[in-house]
């Protein structure tokens, strides 16, 4: 029973990571740096809350969330691809911008600086960790299904091949007729929508938007991408691993064996260790961060 509860909570925590990390992986594989995952998630969470609040329907909320992520994804894409702006700077700017925008419109729409009113969500009432609540949430199934879908997309389709080509060697891809910019636009737009779904899940699961609801999860997802060496299945495993560590931290909190802060830093430490090449070499896509000339 304890094992089942542990497993369920791990999945529950891993779902937003799975969405955001899938988005991060596809954008980075196409050669565009994904420091924006946090912003995409936050944007998706906020627009989903707005949609669900005004329509009373979580599916409309989900659609609005995807659109919110797409909008920020397109800002990122235009700045990085059309204007060849520094991708890291743009990423940080979008994260800051989304925090400001969500706070401003939270004020305007709900006259609050901390949270929205309660909105419709999927599944059972309350933050239940039970099997029923989890299984009745379509976003959980979408998140789990995303793993084989991403693996298929990246390695079994022409689009996946093109994404990998423009991320490794854009000049070569261009010379055989791959429209580099268009593939990158598509990848970044997809990344915005996927990461936004992670935010949608958070908002609809908690039945409200709270200020900075994502709380750094976008960066954990980015850590999972790097720790998973930009591979869909390994990235998903990294997401589950980080989520399991977090679950462990929550379960252990009652016993005060290990300070919670020590468990909280596990993903970050593992990522640094992975980057330092201690467990296998971590090689990023060759053209990552470079604008096409």
């Amino acid at each position, binding site marked *: 029973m304890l094992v089942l509860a542990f497993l369920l909570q791990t999945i529950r925590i891993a779902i937003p990571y799975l969405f955001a990390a899938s988005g991060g992986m596809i954008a980075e594989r196409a050669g565009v*740096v994904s*420091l924006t995952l946090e912003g995409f998630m936050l944007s998706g969470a906020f627009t989903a809350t707005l949609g669900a609040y005004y329509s009373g329907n979580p599916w409309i909320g989900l659609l609005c969330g995807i659109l919110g992520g797409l909008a920020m994804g397109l*800002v990122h894409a235009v*700045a990085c691809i059309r*204007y*060849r*702006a*520094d991708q*890291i*700077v*743009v990423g*940080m*700017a*979008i994260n*800051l*911008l*989304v*925090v*400001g*925008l969500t*706070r*401003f419109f939270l*004020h*305007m729409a709900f006259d609050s*600086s901390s949270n929205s009113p309660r909105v419709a969500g999927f599944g059972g009432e309350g933050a239940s960790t039970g099997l029923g609540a989890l299984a009745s949430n379509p976003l959980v199934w979408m998140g789990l299904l995303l793993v084989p879908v991403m693996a298929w997309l990246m390695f079994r389709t022409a689009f996946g091949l093109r994404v990998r080509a423009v991320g490794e060697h854009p000049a070569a891809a261009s010379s055989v007729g791959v429209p580099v910019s268009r593939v990158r636009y598509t990848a970044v737009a997809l990344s915005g929508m996927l990461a936004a779904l992670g935010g949608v899940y958070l908002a609809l699961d908690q039945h409200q938007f709270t200020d900075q609801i994502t709380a*750094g999860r976008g*960066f954990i997802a*980015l*850590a999972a991408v*790097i720790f998973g060496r930009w591979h869909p299945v390994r990235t998903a495993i990294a997401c589950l691993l980080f989520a399991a560590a977090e679950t462990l931290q929550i379960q252990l909190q009652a016993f005060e064996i290990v*300070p919670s*802060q*020590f468990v*909280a*830093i596990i993903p*970050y*430490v593992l*990522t*640094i260790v992975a*980057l*330092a*090449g201690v467990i296998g070499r971590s090689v*990023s896509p060759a053209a990552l961060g470079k*604008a096409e000339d």
Partner: protein
Amino acid sequence: MTTSTEAPPRAAPPGTPAAPPRWRTQLEEALLPPLVAILAAMVVGDLLILSMGQSPAAVYGMLLEGTWGNAYGFGQVMFKATTLTFTGLAVALALRAGLFNVGAEGQLAAGGFVAALAGWMLPAGTPWIIAIPLCILGAALGGAAVGAVPGTLKARFGAHEVIVTIMTNFIVLALLNYVVSAHLHVPETLHTPEIGAGVVPRFGGPFTGSAANASLFLALAAAGAVWWYLFRTRRGYELRAVGLQPDAAEYAGIRVGGVWIRAMTVSGALAGLSGINYVLGYKHYYEDGFAGGAGFLGIAVALVGRNDPLGVVLAALFFATLSQGGLAINAVVPKQMVEVMQGVVILAVAVSVPEVRRLLRQQRRAG
């Protein structure tokens, strides 16, 4: 990266009209992006103000009145600008070496913590001439230790400094949170005990009541020192050479890895120094979360200041005005408006830097 990589101007072929002088092109290339960005931010600000049904002119007027219009407001601007000058210098120095230090937030927290620790451990009544330099040194060392990690990992293993600094931010903040909440806090709070020595005097006179303090002079001195280091010393020359073209620098006999480590360490020390403004000059203790995003805003300051020490000081004043101005207008427009404007400024600078360079180059070619 955003370091300037402008090509030398082409020699004009005979017969074409003389191109504009080089200094003018350089000045345009340096100043146009920030100006475009500030304009873009004001337009976005206009839209947000209008969406609240207010008059932009009146709101911007309130913003200026609450910052530069009275002594208290200006004192607060100076206080915020002091922190931002340090973090901006930290980011700018690393960028000159071609490195992106996203870790100023954690370095600033570490510096503030060590300064508070030093001030707390020194016996009360230690003469200020000993206490203040010791606390300042502590702040620099705390930041430098955190900054040295990504520098070393980059030089030794090629680990990308952006990812490592993002991760070290989370790690440092979590560990400091642990130390303070488990061992060092005053009961019922999340801050350390007050320091017994090393207090930096606050400004008196008209500025009484504001948080402005003598750390401001240290920030200005640091800007001067960074300028001297970058443009008048051999090590600064090496640093800039590595930033412009690491392979060429290596070929010229510069140890690139060593320069990376040094640049990140000095950058971390500068970010750590910004902790003294709050800890020694204002609250006299370390409080969990006191950095409050000043490290991230340092990126914006460095970008708008175009990685130039004087530019950094001016950009720090600009961002400090915005952030203090948010409080002044909060009654009519949510103060978060200025956060949106800050984001727009960074985005617009990032977009317009390569665009302005391209346009100027086109113009130069056209003669």
